[in-house]
């Protein structure tokens, strides 16, 4: 049987097409791995029957020679995606028992391409968190371990844990402020958030609609290119979805970046940045230079204000999006006392169904949108957001192709270590959140280990709609960094 911890989407695709392995065999092997992975708490809903049926259908297509790249590839799906007839809870108690009557566009496209769903993956509740500790299913755990259990990051923590632990070949993630890139960095895998509008948001449980984008989390850059292409495309059901042709991203991976201009933004050099991260960034810069890129110091002056702007805009949009959880149409409804009216029903349902962080953000959002504060907070934040985007526009207009930064300020931290301080937790996204505010594509590539032997990631930020160029730069960086470390199996 194939060695699962060496397999990638690309190599599995090629092996299945050659007839060396079938999707049924691969799927069975992954289902067995998942069974033995309870300690990671990555898979929270198991769909073995669906997977087995999809694998069988995929094998028929592969034999007939009608097989797209993702055909027969076993995947994990983040719990935020609505999957027809399968629990889709956004890791929230308020959606307990919810089984959508429809399929999200992203999963529809993946399944149409022949991909196999092994199950649904753990995440932070409503994608609000950076450590997968706000989930109603309990913490997902990082397969990388030193002396204690570490967070896989968040919000796509289950996706990151599952891919890093070889429980699937790839996973869907979503990224509102860093929720694909930060967990990818914490677990030594690759994750890309495409340009806003590249991937349909239809059927993805909404957190902050102007920032949310789905993307793939995979073992390497080639796999990210293959899986992203299958997820992209115009969708009439999402009015912000871009009506643009989807390029062949895998074909963009030439490894040639001669003459490309890579920007190094001085504002990302934070006070108190760890020596590990500092060195990783310098090494990554040197690698791109050696590959023939021109390195240019750049300035993105409003970087400092990205997190505070995000913590106005994201909660404001969340407070509006999450108003739909009212105990009427789906999910949980609180048990009512005699005499309780509809207001008590709303208030008790939402108090019981939402966890502490979600309640906090809904209420902050309610406050910044309330009469008298709308201009001071919400409109000001939207103006600052415009300035943050202008910073990037200027740099790209000056000829910069991509921007290199660290993906996270630290390596993975211990579960429970940052949980009691919301603002400390928010700082996890300091390098990633600018990208969401500006609607740009960003990718996290594993590039080294810290002194404790934990993975660290570098982030590349690209021009809008230039995912192909961005993936090629990431591919070049990946080849130069030669990151091959894997977590020791302890689960």
């Amino acid at each position, binding site marked *: 049987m194939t060695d699962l911890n060496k397999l990638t989407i690309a190599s599995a695709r090629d092996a299945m097409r050659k007839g060396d392995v079938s999707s049924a065999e691969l799927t069975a092997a992954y289902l067995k791995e998942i069974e033995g992975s309870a300690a990671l708490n990555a898979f929270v809903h198991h769909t073995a029957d669906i997977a087995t049926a999809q694998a069988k259908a995929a094998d028929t297509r592969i034999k007939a020679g009608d097989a797209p790249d993702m055909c027969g590839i076993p995947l994990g799906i983040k719990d935020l995606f609505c999957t027809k007839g399968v629990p889709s809870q956004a890791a929230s108690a308020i959606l307990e028992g919810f089984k959508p009557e429809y399929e999200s566009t992203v999963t529809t496209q993946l399944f149409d391409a022949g991909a196999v769903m092994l199950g649904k993956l753990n995440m932070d509740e409503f994608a609000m968190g950076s450590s997968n500790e706000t989930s109603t299913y309990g913490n997902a755990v990082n397969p990388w371990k030193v002396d204690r259990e570490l967070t896989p990051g968040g919000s796509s923590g289950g996706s990151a844990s599952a891919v890093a632990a070889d429980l699937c070949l790839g996973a869907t993630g979503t990224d509102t402020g860093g929720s694909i890139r930060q967990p990818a960095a914490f677990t030594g895998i690759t994750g890309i958030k495409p340009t806003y509008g590249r991937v349909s948001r239809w059927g993805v449980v909404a957190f902050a609609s102007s920032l949310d984008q789905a993307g793939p989390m995979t073992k390497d850059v080639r796999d990210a290119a293959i899986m992203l292409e299958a997820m992209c495309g115009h969708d009439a059901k999402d009015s912000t979805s871009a009506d643009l042709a989807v390029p062949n991203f895998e074909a963009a991976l030439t490894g040639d970046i001669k003459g490309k201009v890579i920007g190094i933004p001085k504002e990302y050099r934070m006070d108190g940045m760890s020596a590990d991260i500092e060195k990783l960034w310098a090494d990554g810069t040197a690698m791109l230079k050696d590959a023939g890129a021109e390195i240019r110091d750049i300035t993105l002056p409003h970087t400092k204000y990205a997190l505070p702007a995000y913590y106005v805009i994201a909660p404001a949009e969340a407070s509006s999006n999450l108003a739909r959880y009212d105990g009427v149409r789906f999910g949980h409804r609180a048990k009512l006392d005699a005499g309780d009216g509809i207001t008590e029903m709303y208030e008790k349902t939402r108090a019981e169904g939402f966890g502490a962080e979600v309640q906090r953000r809904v209420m902050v959002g309610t406050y910044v949108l309330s009469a008298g504060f709308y201009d001071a*907070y919400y409109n000001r934040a939207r103006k600052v957001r415009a300035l943050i985007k202008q910073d990037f526009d200027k740099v790209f207009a000056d000829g910069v192709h991509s921007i290199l930064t660290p993906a996270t300020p630290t390596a993975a931290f211990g579960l429970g270590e940052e949980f009691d301080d919301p603002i400390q937790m928010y700082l996890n996204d300091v390098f990633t959140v600018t990208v969401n505010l500006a609607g740009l594509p960003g990718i996290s590539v594993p590039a080294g280990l810290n002194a404790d032997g934990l993975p660290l990631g570098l982030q590349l930020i690209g021009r809008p709609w230039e995912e192909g160029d961005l993936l090629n730069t990431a591919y070049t960086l990946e080849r130069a960094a030669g990151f091959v470390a894997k977590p020791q199996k302890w689960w």
Partner: protein
Amino acid sequence: MSIDIDTARRVAKLARIKVEDDALPALASEFSAILGFIEQLNEVDVDGIEPMTSVTPQRLKRRTDVVTDGSQQPAVLKNAPDAREGFFAVPKVVE
């Protein structure tokens, strides 16, 4: 900016989330910390800047104003905590 207990109570009410009285002081202090963090935005000169409405400069698509969906009552009601006779059932709203 410091948030007092009455403001915390009012925000919880607006958000339709029941917060017990004894939990309000902690909530107010959490809000104060988060709003303190947000106040950094006051340092930015935003004179003459339009608030962002769309991050990508494309116009939203228009479609013909026609019915595109419907007749799915059972599917719509399938996940309701309380559905009766083809309707969502809720506690009495009008006395």
